[in-house]
């Protein structure tokens, strides 16, 4: 082929690069590995992740739920995972219809009217929600609950730091573990967004409806964030509570933990704000013969057309993960999501009650919870948990000291439908004996 284009050597392909900028040595990276060698190497590295093998009660924004086998089979279809963003609708209807179903499912679960095709994850979705609230209200203050996921709050801070948005955090109630009262009190006429997570980082359910009234009374938008999407199978939808923007992490719906990603951010709002939504939207459309199809629409919001005035800079989103969530939601369906949520809540209640009864252990917060709750240990939670791991092969939860230096003995426990009673009893026994 070189001859065909009149070149003598591969090197000549790079003539347009100035001599002094050409790398004249081989890259200092390893020589090629065969499949056998590569798999051996990765398998061996995998065994050095003890955490992945243990019965786990870790949540805090990433959850272990059962993933039906067909989810991975479907997202592994060549036509889905090796396909590009559906800019050519005539040959990407499969992806487009799946996204349209995803948007619908997200609307239905959140109780909202419009949802987009996905955001990077829950944390960036929350940040984009705050930016959107500023666009909608033309106000520059955001008030957020300090009981929201600490990493989510960090991401919001990063996103808003140069957007001229002032971010206020309100404390949570040390008794209940909730923050809605303080939030309701803090909202004022200059508030763009009231930001609450429910269930919050401590697993405590907030009174979202009350917040909606408070926010709307001052002309602010209520932004509701959900890290445990499964909770929507049991708890009143934010939409029904009056939320204006709902963001959630969709990992609970058929996405493996995978050390933190890729996950998928859900973003939903009211019809009237549709043109302020960040990211891609798929809509219904018809061809000349009247056949129904789907297309990417309202593109004038997006960076490739609106450039610096776009509603966001997002381009590539989490397509395949949104597909996994779609397959999950459709396979589990109406009854499966209810059943899974029900089992999460029941098993968590069982564990919570039993742990509360252990000598030296207590529950610092009184608010109702879904499948996560904070436990106060007799000693340092971090040490306790690391011993639980090493001695009992149990990941007992997340030490809050990771995020809050003033809570050395507290840890967050999460229980889902995949935790058998035997596992829960082993955890309780472990806590008792260690």
């Amino acid at each position, binding site marked *: 082929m070189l001859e065909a284009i009149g070149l003598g050597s591969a090197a000549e392909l790079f003539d347009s690069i100035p001599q002094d900028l050409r790398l004249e040595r081989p890259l200092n990276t390893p020589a090629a590995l065969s499949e056998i060698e590569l798999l051996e190497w990765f398998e061996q590295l995998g065994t*050095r992740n003890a955490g992945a093998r243990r019965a786990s009660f870790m949540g805090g924004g990433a959850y272990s739920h059962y993933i039906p086998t067909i989810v991975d089979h479907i997202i592994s279809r060549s*036509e889905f995972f090796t396909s590009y963003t559906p800019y050519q609708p005539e040959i990407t209807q499969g992806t487009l219809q799946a996204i349209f179903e995803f948007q*619908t499912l997200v609307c239905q679960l959140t109780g909202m009217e419009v949802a987009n095709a996905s955001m990077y994850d829950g944390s960036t979705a929350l940040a984009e929600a705050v930016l959107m609230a500023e666009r909608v209200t033309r106000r520059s203050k955001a008030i957020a609950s300090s009981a929201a996921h600490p990493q989510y709050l960090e991401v919001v801070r990063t996103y808003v730091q140069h957007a001229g948005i002032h971010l206020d955090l309100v404390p949570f109630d040390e008794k209940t573990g909730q923050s809605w009262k303080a939030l309701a009190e803090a909202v004022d006429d200059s508030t763009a967004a009231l930001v609450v997570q429910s269930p919050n980082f401590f697993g405590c359910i907030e009174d979202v409806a009350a917040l909606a009234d408070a926010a709307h009374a001052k002309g602010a938008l209520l932004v509701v964030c959900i890290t445990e999407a499964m909770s929507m199978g049991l708890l009143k939808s934010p939409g029904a509570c009056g939320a204006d923007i709902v963001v959630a992490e969709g990992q609970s719906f058929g996405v493996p933990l995978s050390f933190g990603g890729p996950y998928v951010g859900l973003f939903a709002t009211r019809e009237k704000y549709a043109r302020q939504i960040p990211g891609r939207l798929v809509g219904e459309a018809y061809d000349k013969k009247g056949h129904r199809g789907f297309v990417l629409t309202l593109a004038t919001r997006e960076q490739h057309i609106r450039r610096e005035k776009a509603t966001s800079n997002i381009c*590539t989103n989490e397509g395949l993960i949104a597909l996994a969530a779609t397959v999950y939601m459709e396979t589990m369906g109406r009854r499966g999501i209810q059943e899974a949520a029900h089992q999460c809540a029941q098993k968590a209640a069982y564990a919570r009650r039993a742990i509360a009864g252990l000598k030296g252990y207590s529950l610092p917060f009184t608010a109702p919870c879904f499948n996560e709750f904070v436990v106060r240990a007799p000693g340092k939670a971090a040490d306790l948990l690391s011993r639980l791991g090493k001695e009992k092969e149990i990941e007992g939860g997340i030490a809050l000291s990771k995020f809050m230096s003033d809570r050395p003995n507290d840890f967050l426990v999460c229980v889902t439908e995949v935790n058998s009673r035997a596992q829960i009893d082993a955890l309780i026994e472990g806590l008792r004996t260690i």
Partner: protein
Amino acid sequence: MTTGITKVTSHISPNEQLIFERSQTGRIGYRLPALDVDEVELDIPAEFRRDDDLEGMPEVSEVDVIRHFIRMSTWNYSIDIGMYPLGSCTMKYNSRLNERVARIAGFANLHPLTDDSDAQGALEVIYELQQHLAEITGLPGISLQPAAGAHGEMTGIMIIRAFLDTRDGAAASHRRTMLIPDSAHGTNPASAHLSGFSVKTIKSTSEGLTDLDHLRELCSHGDVAGLMLTNPNTLGLFERNIKEICDIVHEAGGLVYMDGANMNALVGVSRPGDMGVDVIHLNLHKTFSTPHGGGGPGSGPCCCTKELERFLPVPRIVKTDSTFRLDYNQPQSIGRVKAFLGNYGMMLRALSYTLTHGNDGLREATEAAVLNARYVAAGLAEVYDKPFAGSPMHEVVFTDKRQSRKGVHTLDIAKRLIDYGFHPMTIYFPLIVQGAMLIEPTESVGRQELDQFVAAMKSIASEAVEDPELVLNAPHSTRIGRLDEATAARKPVLRWKP
């Protein structure tokens, strides 16, 4: 109509409704173990509970779901079906081996908040990949946290801002201008805006390169925070004056950001760090072959100079002796851009890519990618207008200038390509080229298919002359025709309703 169409034939394709239209009360597709704890009355008050019984969520069986998605999947074009010449998107083959690696239980089941000591293998993967990317870019400071290219841009630009604010203190408030070429991708200005910069546009020369005089002019006001440049640029041309460009910006007190979306032209051949670039993002879902998945996920590592390293997002990964840990103690960091550690699964795939290719394989891939683009460029030059004379790197831009005389435009040519069995090239980008057709074959296609592509494009060119209608109404062989996007946007229907 089938003149010269060698790549496809027409065949039956299954129809499929929306899942909601298939739903039937009572059907289930899941089975969970029975609840094994005694059921208790939950302490969740009624007003906090859902009262809609999840009305409207689908009720279908497992085989319903399988058929639903398998049928829909057959409507998609994909890399595995053939060449995907989307300029700027680098649609290359996605190895099955990488997929297998990403599914190894030791990684797939690992919780992101696991103590470092129980996740050493996972952390080593991150560290190792960072080493490779640092060597490939010549930029030692790496963060794998950004979830995509645009996310990496935002991160990089915020790093520039943090640097300036630290260096100039209050005076930095006068440096709020980000220079961006008119040929840049839309995410560039959008990302600059997110970081609080106002954008000034640099002209391109008739050659298709950055206009140095204009750059100098823009740099003469003391307000320049930096420059965002894509290299090779979005016309597929290497910015031969890159070093001088960097000098100009640096002398003006700004920093240089390089959009690395086109690194597939440079891996193993030339390194941004050696060009004078300060920050760059990579797209693992382009250059490093992680699958596009119909729109994502991506991964957009941010790579910077030693000097800028301290501003990278937390946590950083640190190796001491042979153990790895996450370091959150970085007071000058711009902060977190995403929860947890980024799109980890994509890191596994990218590392699998660099390791299976090896250092020589990485360079060979670059050579093949550029060779293929050159081959197409040569093949099409006689029938399509090639607006820039320079020899392209991994992608080449053509226009519809000649065809438009007959009223046939880029969109029509793209749609007609579908009838020939090809996914169209990137169209109307970059915006500075009227009727642009940006073609990037990548290394994952053989000569045979390249020849078929060139033949198809030539055949369309003649159709444009002999039978314009044929092209204007394309595609003719797909299950649906061109959709009325205007109406779709005017009266958007964004969800199914009961």
